[in-house]
Structure formats: C-alpha cells, structure tokens
C-alpha cells in the first residue's frame, strides 16, 4: 500500500470513517523530520577520538600534544594535559595544563593510526558526499 514518508517527530494516525456500512479506512502517516542538519562527518569522527592523545599543529607552526577532551561542530578543540612538541623553541606554556583551540587556527591534527577505522571513514565520506549534493 502506498504511503508517503515525510519525517517529523511524532507518529500521527488518522482514521477516516466513511458513511455507514462502509469499511473504515485507516491512514497511518509516519512523520519523521528529514533532519538536514549541518553535515557532521568530522565532528562525529573527533567525538569518537575523545580521550585519545593527539598532536594539534596550528597555523602559527605551534604543535601541541595533549589528550582530546572535547570537540564541537566548528571543530574547536579542548585538550588536557598539554605539552609543546617539537623543539621547545616556542612558548613553553609550562603552567598551562588545558587549552581551548579555535577550530579555524588548526592546520593539522596528528592521529594515532590504530584508533582510526579507515573503512568506516571511507563509507561515511561517500554517504556525506551524497547527502551534500542534495
């Protein structure tokens, strides 16, 4: 039986009673919201890496090693227990334990290779690309 799938949050059920002696028709409309939220691939990816050690290289050439504490939709990053990697010719930040890094100043994030499921990533990227086209 044909039914239209539009997505909202609640399930609506309509029953139409026709005239007497005629069968009751029940139209069930499933409504779920087609959530076209901002694509989330890398946000989800980083969320899966919370608790892992990473090295964030900034656009000003500073490299910071730390534990990924949290990330947001802008890919802003919070690191804990940080230390400056590379020869410490850059600000030592000895007293700084935690930091918040604005996403836009990040150049690279070096990741532990064994924490990354490359197959899953590739599949997710294909899906994200499809979703983005529509």
């Amino acid at each position: 039986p044909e039914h239209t799938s539009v997505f909202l949050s609640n399930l609506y059920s309509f029953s139409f009673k026709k005239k007497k002696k005629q069968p009751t028709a029940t139209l069930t409309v499933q409504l779920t919201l087609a959530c076209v939220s901002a694509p989330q691939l890398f946000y989800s990816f980083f969320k899966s890496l919370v608790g892992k050690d990473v090295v964030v290289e900034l656009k000003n050439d500073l490299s910071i090693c730390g534990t990924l504490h949290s990330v947001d939709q802008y890919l802003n990053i919070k690191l804990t227990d940080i230390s400056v990697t590379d020869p410490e010719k850059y600000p030592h930040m000895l007293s700084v334990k935690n930091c918040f890094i604005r996403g836009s100043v990040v150049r690279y994030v070096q990741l532990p290779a064994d924490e990354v499921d490359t197959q899953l990533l590739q599949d997710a990227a294909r899906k994200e690309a499809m979703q983005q086209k529509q």
Partner: protein
Amino acid sequence: MKTGRFEQQPTTNTVEEPLDLIRLSLDERIYVKMRNDRELRGRLHAYDQHLNMILGDVEETVTTVEIDEETYEELYKSTKRNIPMLFVRGDGVVLVAPPLRVG
C-alpha cells in the same frame, strides 16, 4: 539546500561536480597542495565539502627559499616528514590531484 526529496538517493556513479572527482579517489593515494608552500602525499580516507580530509601514510613536504645575501642566489630547500594518520583542515587546501608521476 534543495527542496526535500523523500526517497533515498542511491549512490550515483556519475561524476557531476568537482567533489565527485575527489570521491573517486577515496582509498587511493593523492597529492594535496596547500598554502604556505606545503604539499602532502597520502591515502585519502575521508573528506567533506570544506575539503577537510583524513589522510593515511602521509608524507609532508615543506619548501623554503633561502636567498644568499651576497650572490642573491635562490636556494630551494625542502623538508619532509612522515605522519601515519593526519586530519587536514580544509581551509589550507589549494589543490587535490592524483599523485604526480615523475616522467
């Protein structure tokens, strides 16, 4: 954003826009040219419309030019390093291509 379509669009194999070309390179080695005279070569695992990318087995090349004070000679130096798994932020990316084959 186009008006909502309720049917699931099956994965299209046709290449329509530039980002589709990148999709064809998933799990392949690629060459990425970046700002500040940097280049990357690695295996593409993920990307998005901003050109944020995840690359595996990456070799980064940073090219600098030193100029001799007396002779004004330009000396091109490049520094390479290897990184097993790297997230690259899209705003630094300038070009994405299959790896260059040295003829």
